[in-house]
């Protein structure tokens, strides 16, 4: 099942691309696949399938999720952004 990561801010700069499609039935599975598909994100952004505390994940732009077991649906879009929203 494919889901799409949309990358913003530092994550986009690290990855060098704005969107990456991966397989994943849960948030954790999708993050692990993203980490494998995009090595520059491994470490500072994703560590062993877990999102760094300095990043947030919004499911379809509606709610923030972090539970690796959170189920995903086909064509879900996961928006990856910096946790530092202020300015």
């Amino acid at each position, binding site marked *: 099942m494919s889901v799409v990561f949309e990358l913003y801010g*530092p994550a986009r700069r690290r990855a060098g691309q704005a969107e990456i499609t991966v397989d994943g039935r849960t948030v954790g599975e999708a993050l692990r696949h993203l980490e494998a598909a995009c090595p520059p994100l491994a470490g500072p952004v994703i560590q062993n399938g877990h999102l760094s505390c*300095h990043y947030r994940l919004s499911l379809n732009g509606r*709610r923030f999720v972090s539970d690796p077991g959170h189920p995903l649906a086909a064509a879900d879009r996961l928006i990856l952004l*910096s946790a530092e929203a202020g*300015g």
Partner: protein
Amino acid sequence: MAEAASAGKPASTSGPVPGDEPTPGGYHGRYLRVDLTTGSSRLIPLEATILRRFIGGSGLGTWLLAREQPAGTQPLAPAACVVFAFSPLVGTPLTTSAKFAVVSLSPLTQRLNDALSSSYFALAAKGAGLDALVITGACDHPSVLIIDGEGDQPAVRVEPAGPLWGLTAAAAESGLKERLRRPDSPGYHTAAIGPAGERRVRFATLSHDGRHAGRGGTGAVLGAKFLKAVAVRGSRQAPPAHPARVHAAAKDLSRRSFGPATEKYRELGTAANLLVFNRLAVLPTRNFQESTFEDAAALSAENLAATRHKTRRSCAACTIGCEHVYGMKGKKGGVRLEYESLFALGSLCGVGDPDAVLEAVRLCDEMGMDTISAGGTIAFALECIQRGLLDPAAPPSPLDPAAPPGQQMASPPEEPARRAATGKTSLPADLRFGDAASLHGMLRAMGRREPGLGQLLAEGSRRMAAVIGGEATSFAPHVKGLEIPGYEPRALQAMALGFAVGTRGADHNRSSAYEVDFSEEGDRLHGDATTAIAAVATEDRAVLMDSLILCKFLRGVFTDFYGENAELLAAVTGWDLTAEELRRTAGRIVTARRWFNQQEGWTPGEDTLPDRFFDTPLTQGASRGAVLTRLQLAAMKSSYYQARGWTLDGHVPDNVQGAEDLSWTRPAPGL
């Protein structure tokens, strides 16, 4: 105006300062009070008890304003005070600590205002042996205040501003430094107002080193005192109690400041918000009529970095380096750009050309105007024109004979003559959203207080709406008179609460409740009691950072926020501090600020949002269907007030910490 300050004559300075208790490390234990009307000044001791309760910056500034300014003083009256409050951390090697707060009553909101800035002015003033500077009174002609702290006691004098009056803040600072420069003698650091401050534009800034104490109109307060600039120098130390601990902590904090918690600020700056805010449909557009902007990609930090980036800069004593400076095509120099300026002068006004937005920011810097209030006021005017509520060629007069003193038009006395001399207007014939010429013309007109629409714009959106009347008040984008920053409150409902209850009005920085919206702590589309409790916590953390003072961009590096900051402050001051004490201190300062506003006439009805933001769902993108009801906001406010220990309608009881601290020191009205 009362008695004039003695031009060029040294002011008397009383000293030395007695102290009942030992002065804590990092403090001098005194502040300087300058009366511009009489030209006199004196040093006044600060008790250790007060310093421990209010620390510095916003906290100490609030206490000092309460102490020095009787309730009911109008913000542009000579008796109004402007407090420059430093902190025990200024002058230490702790990263981002070279900051100061400027605290006064706002001419925009008639409520407490604190605006923060940073860099060498704070270091120089602390070096002059001061924990704070209080300026009251008014000069009878354009002047500058000079504080030489190189001797045993600060030498204070007031001089004519001369040709500095009328210059941009940057030019005035350069001119004043040059005037004061002596071979083989330490130089001065300066803070100055621009032309907008001179003309008492209600959202004029105080600038120094290209940075601004931006919100709330501090520049107008100084302009009303005919004070163009303050220059200060000094190299006195306020040694920390435990230097080795401070150095170890500074080293550790600097190391962490290079890490992932600040990566966004280093890589792209705050402008990185724009693209993701647009994706989440929380980017205010065309005066909050929409929440996405079709030209967001063009304005994005990513695009600007690829096409226009020039350099990255830091404040003094900062290891983050968040300032991104962009060049305009075909023009020399660069413009520092933050998200709030980008949104306010870009999407909010419907302008999607990056060069047009950069030019608008440059104009605000040149005039010395808060970009959020400038953009918000212009966007509001454009919607009024769009709806046929405002004829820009024949706008209503901002003069309202029924308005109470201090709320009337704030033109300085010489302005009519100046306007008659020029007789020009900066406004194009057709004013509309998305038009760069409209934006630039309106900025010039407001900054110069040009007759007609310029005068009206210089008053801010609340006063504009009041004179336009009718439905205009329902969509004037302000809370308590302060224009709303770039966070759509219908779809960021913790932020909506933060705006509503904010001491200085619609203010993201003092509340920081967006942290709740952009996390799992709350549901950004459905604010509730949990949201409110979380917003109390973000506000407490924010006020502590603003009182210490440390840059909020550091907040992500702390894993134990209160514990680590207690250790920092203990190392500097020598106090035996706990995390719990600092948590209480933060709550005390928030309560003190609310109590101050109560004394200025705050009423529960002020803690709200404009009608536009209630009951009508958003229609775009990821926020489609988001709606904020009055009942929801009332429930969140109730939870917020309860968590703070205030009454059900938001009043501060006299017997709670914060209110007690201020009530015994505040002079009675009329004193």
